């Protein structure tokens, strides 16, 4: 499993521009909101959690076609399924690699974007913590979507359509945590729910991804 993660890191390092594209999308898309609704700080502060979470969601989903697509195209995926190692374990490794390459940069950049929205300190911390818990869930759910749509023409858009409804709870709890802090309430409830979602997804998604990969390669 570790050699797979290291391989994915190595491949991403050799294609740095492509690995950074979703991050750039995140920054550009988030910047569109103030341009669209005006620069009034109070409104931006209210909008920020939702807007930033939605942009993080979309940026995560856009990076998913590269999760299994290239391995499917060059026959590597078949070798993964035949090598005798556990397929859910493999799906977990791929999701982890995906998260470190595409999810973590979002977590690190989000507070900087939050400053652009005039978000205050405690809210920034909650936003970052929420994204830290939520982005792995997106990588895991995205793995299921990517595996189901392997090799399909409309792959990219289809993944988004399939995974977005499933990602709505993450959005609600993540953005809700920040809003709670603004309202003076503790975000612990939201964050623990996010943690619970992460646990459930860790248990279920690799199995579902493995099943979907077998279906796609049947």
């Amino acid at each position, binding site marked *: 499993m570790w050699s797979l993660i290291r391989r994915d890191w190595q491949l991403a390092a050799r294609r740095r521009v492509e690995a950074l594209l979703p991050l750039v999308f995140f920054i550009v898309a988030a910047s569109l909101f103030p341009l669209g609704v005006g620069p009034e700080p109070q409104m931006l502060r209210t909008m920020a959690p939702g807007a930033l979470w939605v942009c993080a969601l979309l940026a995560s989903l856009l990076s998913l076609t590269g999760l299994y697509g290239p391995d499917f195209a060059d026959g590597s995926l078949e070798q993964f399924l035949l090598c005798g190692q556990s397929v859910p374990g493999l799906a977990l490794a791929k999701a982890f690699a995906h998260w470190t390459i595409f999810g973590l940069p979002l977590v690190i950049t989000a507070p900087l974007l939050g400053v652009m929205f005039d978000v205050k300190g405690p809210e920034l911390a909650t936003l970052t913590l929420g994204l830290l818990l939520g982005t792995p869930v997106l990588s895991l759910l995205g793995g299921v979507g990517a595996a189901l*749509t392997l090799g399909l023409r409309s792959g990219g858009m289809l993944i988004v*359509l*399939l995974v977005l409804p499933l990602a*709505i709870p993450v959005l*609600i709890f993540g953005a809700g945590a920040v809003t709670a802090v603004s309202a003076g309430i503790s975000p612990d409830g939201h964050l623990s729910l996010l943690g619970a979602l992460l646990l459930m997804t860790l248990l279920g998604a690799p199995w579902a991804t493995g099943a979907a990969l077998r279906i796609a390669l049947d």
Partner: protein
Amino acid sequence: MAGLTWTTFSAPSRFEPLAGKLIPWLWALTAVFALAGLWVGFAIAPTDFQQGQSYRIIFIHVPAAWMSMVLYVAMAFWASIGWAFRVKLASMVARAIAPTGALFTFLALWTGALWGKPTWGTWWVWDARLTSELILLFLYLGFIALVEAIDDPVRGDHAGALLALVGVVNVPIIYFSVKWWNTLHQGSSISMTAAPKMASTMLTSMLLMTIAFWAYAFAVVFARTRAVILERERDAQWVQALARSAR
């Protein structure tokens, strides 16, 4: 009736003519119950104390919402049977259910809007249940999009089954999170659950409409399944014979 077992009609070749015979009866049932339900709902049930005449739309809205949820579970169930036991007919039935389920979801949303306008002055309300219906519509559309995008029918069947299963598991989670979101942001001033107290005639009307919708769903799903069968099995001998005799 000798030799009739659970699996007698699991062969597409035997299901197709059976469905064909049942469909006209199902349509008849639909018409009868729909007329009865609408008559009780619109002519007999009393005017609501608070909402006047406009509340009557719930006689369509609530049964439609029930159907949308039940059909999703049915679709996931049949697709899973098709996947686990490799019964093609089950997968075909699941595919046939999806558009009807989506239709009921859309109907529930639309009638929800029609109720909202006279009652609260807006066409759309981010109530927990309506929002969950909207997300359910996305789940249906996702299923349809996925199975249609896959060329190989067997891969499409199995991928759809997995997606529907993932959906069924997630629906409670989504509903819970939407309720949470709703209570945070709006308080409970606006809610579909503030329905008028159910007089027995109102309940009767909703039950009659539910039965009508069930009969309609069966009729349409059977018809669509027949079409799917004939298309998927077009190389089989019994279909060729059917086509020849129809000429």
